[in-house]
């Protein structure tokens, strides 16, 4: 400090020489704790003269002579010592004048008595404690101190004064800049990189969360969709089967009902046709039919034939008779022309003729026709009218019987068929 000041102010202060230069006194108080790495530029705290206790401030003509609390005044000390001596002397004097207890009476003795609660043993023996002391065991001889021969030769000293070599602050600046700069640059880069990575990671995390959730939602919906679809398919399948079965059953039922109805008539019709076909027969009836009736018919036929034969014979007889009579009449008629009441008979005759004409068409050529013709000619005679009527009635009966015969023949023919 001094040298610095001297360096600075030497040109100005050249007149005085000091053994100790005037200097501002630093304050002894340390503001902060002594730290290990004391930075060089900590300002030196100088004491302020205004606040220095040693400097008397105020008026100087009435100086307060009170001693400082930290510093004792010598006069005061002396006075205190005298006072002490006097007090001691006084005490000694008073000791002699102090009243004592009176002397004991004849034959009595003062004895000291303890009046406390607990008695105390007073022994004359003084408590003795043994103390021992011993010197250390014999020590080894200490090693000889290093022999440093006395210095010979000439002492040379050198001192590097301020500012002779180099100015550290100036020199170190660029190096420091580079060092610190590079370190900070590198660390900044790395920190930025890490921060960037952390940010990316955070956004990625959030994104992944969202993405996972969305994906899960999508997959769930897909799954749901799939399940619903499958369910629908299955149900549709089931429905199809149900409908199919339904149809089939209804068809079957309808077919069955139809068949039943269709075949309902079958049985009666079968029976009917069988019955018609003659497969169900009453045996008696059958017997009658097979046995009895043909025989009956045969007999009837026979009877009829007899009848017919008889009739034919009769007819022949009649015919002969009639022919003979006709011949006779013709003989007779050749002479008288007979009066024919044809008008009265024309009608019936026409009818009869027509009838007979019809009958001619119907009946096969037989002798009876000729007989009828002959009868027709015979009808002219009114005398034979009743006879003719009889004959005609007989003829009618004959024709009826012939008809009957024919029908009977037809029937028998059919039956025989």
């Amino acid at each position, binding site marked *: 400090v001094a040298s610095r000041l001297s360096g600075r102010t030497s040109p100005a202060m050249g007149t005085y020489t000091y053994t100790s230069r005037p200097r501002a006194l630093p304050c002894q108080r340390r503001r902060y704790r002594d730290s290990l790495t004391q930075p060089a530029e900590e300002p030196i705290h100088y004491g302020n003269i205004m606040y220095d206790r040693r400097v008397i401030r105020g008026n100087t003509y009435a100086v307060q002579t009170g001693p400082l609390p930290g510093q004792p005044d010598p006069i005061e000390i002396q006075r205190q010592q005298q006072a002490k001596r006097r007090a001691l002397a006084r005490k000694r004097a008073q000791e002699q004048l102090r009243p004592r207890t009176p002397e004991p009476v004849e034959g009595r003795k003062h004895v000291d008595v303890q009046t406390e609660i607990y008695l105390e043993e007073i022994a004359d023996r003084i408590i003795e404690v043994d103390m021992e002391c011993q010197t250390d065991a014999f020590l080894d001889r200490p090693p000889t101190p290093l022999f440093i021969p006395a210095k010979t030769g000439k002492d040379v000293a050198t001192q590097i004064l301020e500012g002779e070599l*180099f*100015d550290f602050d*100036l020199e170190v600046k660029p190096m420091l800049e580079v060092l610190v700069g590079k370190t900070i640059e590198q660390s900044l880069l790395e920190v930025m990189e890490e921060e960037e990575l952390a940010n990316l990671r955070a956004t990625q995390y959030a994104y992944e*969360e969202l993405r996972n959730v969305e994906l*899960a939602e999508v*997959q*769930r919906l897909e799954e749901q969709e799939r*399940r619903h679809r499958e369910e629908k398919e299955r149900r549709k399948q089931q429905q199809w089967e149900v409908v199919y079965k339904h149809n089939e059953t209804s068809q079957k039922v309808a077919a069955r009902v139809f068949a039943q109805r269709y075949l309902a008539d079958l049985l009666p019709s079968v029976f009917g046709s069988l019955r018609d076909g003659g497969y169900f027969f009453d045996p008696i009836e059958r017997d009658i039919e097979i046995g009895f009736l043909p025989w009956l018919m045969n007999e009837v036929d026979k009877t009829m034939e007899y009848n017919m034969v008889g009739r034919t014979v009769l007819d022949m007889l009649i015919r002969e008779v009639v022919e003979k009579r006709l011949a006779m009449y013709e003989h007779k008629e050749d002479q008288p022309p007979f009066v024919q009441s044809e008008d009265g008979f024309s009608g019936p005759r026409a009818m009869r003729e027509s009838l007979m004409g019809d009958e001619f068409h119907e009946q096969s050529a037989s002798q009876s026709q000729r007989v009828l013709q002959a009868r027709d000619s015979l009808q002219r005679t009114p005398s034979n009218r009743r006879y003719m009527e009889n004959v005609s009635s007989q003829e009618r009966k004959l024709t009826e019987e012939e008809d009957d015969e024919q029908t009977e023949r037809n029937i028998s023919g059919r039956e025989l068929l």
Partner: protein
Amino acid sequence: MSHARVSMYLPPDINPAQASIAYGCRALPKLNEELQSEDLLTRQKALMALCDLMHDPEHVYAAIDIGCLESLKALLKDNNDMVRIKATEVLSIMATHNVGREGFLKHDVILALAYLLNDPQSACREKLHLALKHVAQLPSGAQGIVNSGLIPSLVWKLQREEEEIQGLLLDTLAACLLEDPTEALSNRVVPFLKQKLLSTNDDIRSKAACMLTVVSIPLEGKNQVWQHDVIPILVHLLKDKMEEVQANAAGALMYATMTTQGKYAALDAEAIHPLLNLLCSSLSKARLNATKALTMLAETPEGRKFLRSHVPVFRTLEEDTSEAVRRAARTAIKVIEWKP
């Protein structure tokens, strides 16, 4: 001499371990040449310097441009451990930048890295896996890893490696499985993961659960998860003390219960109660995943019946802070109250 004059002598070598970096644009080419030098010390010093430089993305881009990757690939096969460790460290730092990742893919660095999978030095392997993890964050990077056929060896490594490396491996595999899960699934990744779920390390558990989430995304994965009975373990993990593990386990369950068999397996393992507890968790991811998992379970008739009495809890979730949680709570209520 208190002069402000620069000294004639060069400043002393402050860091003898690093090569001196040239000024400006000469830095990287010079380092590249030094990388290819014959002297071991030069190579090592150059690598240390490169490590520091690679934190700057512009330097990464310039380095790839001048072909540093080729020299680095050659150095990966070096005999010296230090060289290999440092080379993998440089590559891992480059992989944190997007430019670096794309350069990796273009220059087939992944295959070169694969040589070091069995390296004896654990630091080397750790850096290698860190580099692979960063590459896998990029979708095309993950695709590249899958294409290079590394997945079976990585899955195999899951068993053998130490714990920190296992954590890195799980992260890498999770990202790769998002791209192409078939290879990993056919390499028995699910049984390995099942073991990892029971590990004592919290980090490993959480990452294993996260990876199971990714595994359960494809249908094949879901089926395998159900077949290997992982679902009861996941339900057990729902009661884990770490929230991250709980959240990831809920996420895995959310995917695994998508199939009907998964749903019934989860119901048998009594998953509903722990999931309901998770709904009050502080981590929004946990709440979200738990809500979704409960939605899945509510699609079964038994689940629906049980959850109908817990609908008020979902209603409180509808006023949650996160938008995603609100949406999830609404869908959950809709599913629970659905009548066929």
